[in-house]
């Protein structure tokens, strides 16, 4: 009878092969419950009362930028983070002016409360004349073992991007830090 009405039972589950309408709350059981497990919906999800809130990670993935970093000017840039997150990548774009520049600079990524270590860093090449160069650095997958200290950030914490200013010419770098609230 139950099978005719849409219920099928397997060893570890009951399969409902009809649409399921829940007219009351979906509430947790004491132990293994909806609250403790994943929900996969191959169709859509419609919530007509209340809001859909991501309690644990309310932020979507986001990015912070540092603009107009001059290759030949030593400078520290401070970034405050609006959510607990992981910095997963740094992407840069260089706009170079003038020909013959052979020297780039290094951007170091640091936790300001721990000092200025040679942890994560990105080598910015010398800008070519009127050519816009782009590149990226992916944290946690390269040879910079100390990345993790820069990469994990709590809400309201600060990270620094430090330009060593050893570049030549008038090249400017725009840097984007890609952040994910979960990995």
């Amino acid at each position, binding site marked *: 009878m139950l099978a005719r*009405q*849409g219920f099928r039972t397997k060893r*570890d*589950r009951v399969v*409902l*092969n*009809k*649409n*399921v*309408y*829940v*007219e*009351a*709350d*979906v*509430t*947790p*059981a004491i*132990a*293994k*419950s*909806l*609250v*403790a*497990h*994943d*929900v*996969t*919906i*191959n*169709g*859509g*999800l*419609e*919530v*007509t*009362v*209340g*809001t*859909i*809130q*991501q*309690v*644990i990670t*309310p*932020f*979507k993935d*986001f990015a*912070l930028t540092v*603009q107009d970093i001059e290759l030949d000017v030593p400078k*520290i*840039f*401070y970034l*405050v983070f*609006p*959510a607990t997150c992981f910095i997963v990548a740094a992407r840069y774009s260089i706009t170079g002016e003038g020909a013959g520049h052979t020297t780039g600079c290094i951007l170091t990524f640091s936790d*300001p409360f721990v000092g200025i270590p040679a942890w994560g860093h990105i080598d910015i090449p010398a800008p070519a004349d009127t050519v816009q160069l782009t590149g990226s650095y992916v944290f946690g997958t390269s040879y910079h073992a100390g990345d993790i200290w820069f990469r994990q950030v709590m809400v*309201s*914490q*600060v990270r620094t991007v430090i330009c060593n200013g050893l570049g030549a010419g008038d090249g400017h770098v725009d840097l984007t830090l890609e952040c994910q609230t979960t990995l």
Partner: protein
Amino acid sequence: MATTEGELARAGIVIDDTTVTFTRALEVSEDLIVQGSLSVGNDVAITGDLKVLGVITGTVQSKYCLQMKIEDVSSAVSLGSCVVPSFGGGSITKIWTVLQGDIGASGGSIATHINGADISAANEHDVVIANSAVAGDVDSATVASGTHTVAAGDCIMVHPSDTGTNAVALQVVVEITQA
């Protein structure tokens, strides 16, 4: 033909040719996998992952941030601004600042405007930077959700309403909550 009586009905389960309806709270002791659509008349609490391959309909609360820069915190006309992106409507709920240099003896305050209008009638949402604050210092102001709303295309602008001593830059991050 719906089951309107019997053990299932008494348990709050009504079944017709196409639908199983639970008229009471539903407890699922394992994962819930819905091949079709799930329509819920009230709240759902999930502490694990939710994967929806279709469309989510309803009021979704999420947050994102916009970033601005004030070049000179010692100048009241040093402005930072940005435009709320498409589908970016919501309300301003938090504003962070981080100094790029030492501000000097006198601190300052940062005001936020939406389309030219200051959101702080009495400076209640201004970010206050303390006297002698140094590079890397973080300050913030919290705004109640729904108090100051923005829509796609609106301009958010920040500037020093009370200027600091030194001509140092300030990074500003504005949190937008969508609900």
